[in-house]
């Protein structure tokens, strides 16, 4: 990270390769079809403001904080857009899903899109990115209790939505 802050391209490319794909998937769950724009904004932000990186701080939470800020800013100015259909996306070396149900992720994403933004953020970061509630609290600048409440309400709502979608399918 220090090498990236000093402007070393190879160091930036390493960070990009390590995090960009997964972050793109996360942003698709947060902002839908605008994920690529928000991803671009996120990486341009960290490049332009790398002087604000605090030495020694872990990079991934910092990157996700920037991404969440960019996603919020996007959603404040625009509406959530439906993600591109999976068949429109180019082939990519995605990790094999342990439960290969093609409708599953679409179902979850459709339900996620109906959640309020704060609940969606908490669930995406917790459930898909594996951050702990403590880490999410630091990342979002709120208390751990607030994150737990958001996640719990979100999961509750998500389960109702999934049940109704399964019912109508």
């Amino acid at each position, binding site marked *: 990270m220090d090498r990236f802050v000093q402007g070393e391209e190879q160091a930036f490319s390493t960070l990009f390769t390590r995090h*960009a794909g997964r972050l*793109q998937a996360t942003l698709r769950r947060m902002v839908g079809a605008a994920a*690529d724009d928000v991803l671009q904004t996120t990486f341009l932000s960290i*490049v332009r*403001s790398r*002087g604000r990186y605090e030495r020694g701080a872990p990079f991934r939470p910092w990157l996700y904080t920037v991404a969440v800020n960019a996603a919020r800013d996007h959603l404040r100015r625009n509406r959530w857009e439906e993600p591109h259909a*999976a068949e429109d996306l180019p082939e990519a070396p995605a990790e094999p899903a342990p439960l290969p149900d093609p409708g*599953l992720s679409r179902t979850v*994403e459709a339900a996620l899109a109906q959640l309020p933004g704060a609940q969606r953020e908490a669930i995406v970061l917790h459930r898909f990115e594996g951050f702990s509630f403590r880490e999410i609290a630091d990342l979002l600048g709120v208390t751990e209790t607030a994150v737990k409440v958001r996640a719990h309400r979100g*999961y509750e709502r998500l389960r109702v939505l999934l049940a109704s979608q399964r019912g109508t399918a």
Partner: protein
Amino acid sequence: MNECDAFLDALASDRLEAAHRTHARTCPVCAPLLPEASGAVSPAALSLDEVHRRALQALRTTPARPWARDAAMLALLQGAIALGVTVTLGTGNWNSPGAHRTALALVGAALLGTVTLGSILALAPGRRRPRALLWLVPVVPLLLVLSGNGVHTATTMGAALPCALTVVLTAVVPLAVGLALLRGMALDAARTVALALCAAATGLFALHWHCRDGSGAHLLAYHALPWVALALLAIPIRRALPTRSHVP
């Protein structure tokens, strides 16, 4: 509590055990919520290349800019404005017979610290330091009242309004510069208020030495109130401005 509720509670409290997973694998409602059912959204490789290319281009053309340099420049600017306006207005309060000079000096030093060091803390990376500055909202008015001489001289609104105008007009330039700097970081209402409080304290500092009306009512209504109002006004202004970078 049924098995679905137990699974949900376990998921929301980070205590997912084997029994919960076993249930979820066979439950059509809970299965999509299993952590391993990530159902990865395929990353679009082509668009990633484009994002990478543009970011590299930005890296080549944008030198790293230490945040402390901008913060120090703002602190210097605000300090210079505060001292300049003080010299222009004069030190009538300090020279008045009823002045509590020790209290005035201590509070004056605290206000100068707010104007200079406060703006550095308000621009610091992270969220904790700007939020700590929100304590200024109750503390500064209290200090102003405690250091006042209690004498009410500006008995009409016409005589008192210039104080409020001084706070507002003195804050215009530092606030504008501060808001321009805030565009280079993530939208954060607490940081915006913190920075605006420090910028608007320039006028408070000048009035502290100049204004002879030391009554609590005058200090709160015509010094502290416009100071807080400016800080709150900064929030919608910042929200209306486009953000150049979303780094905290």
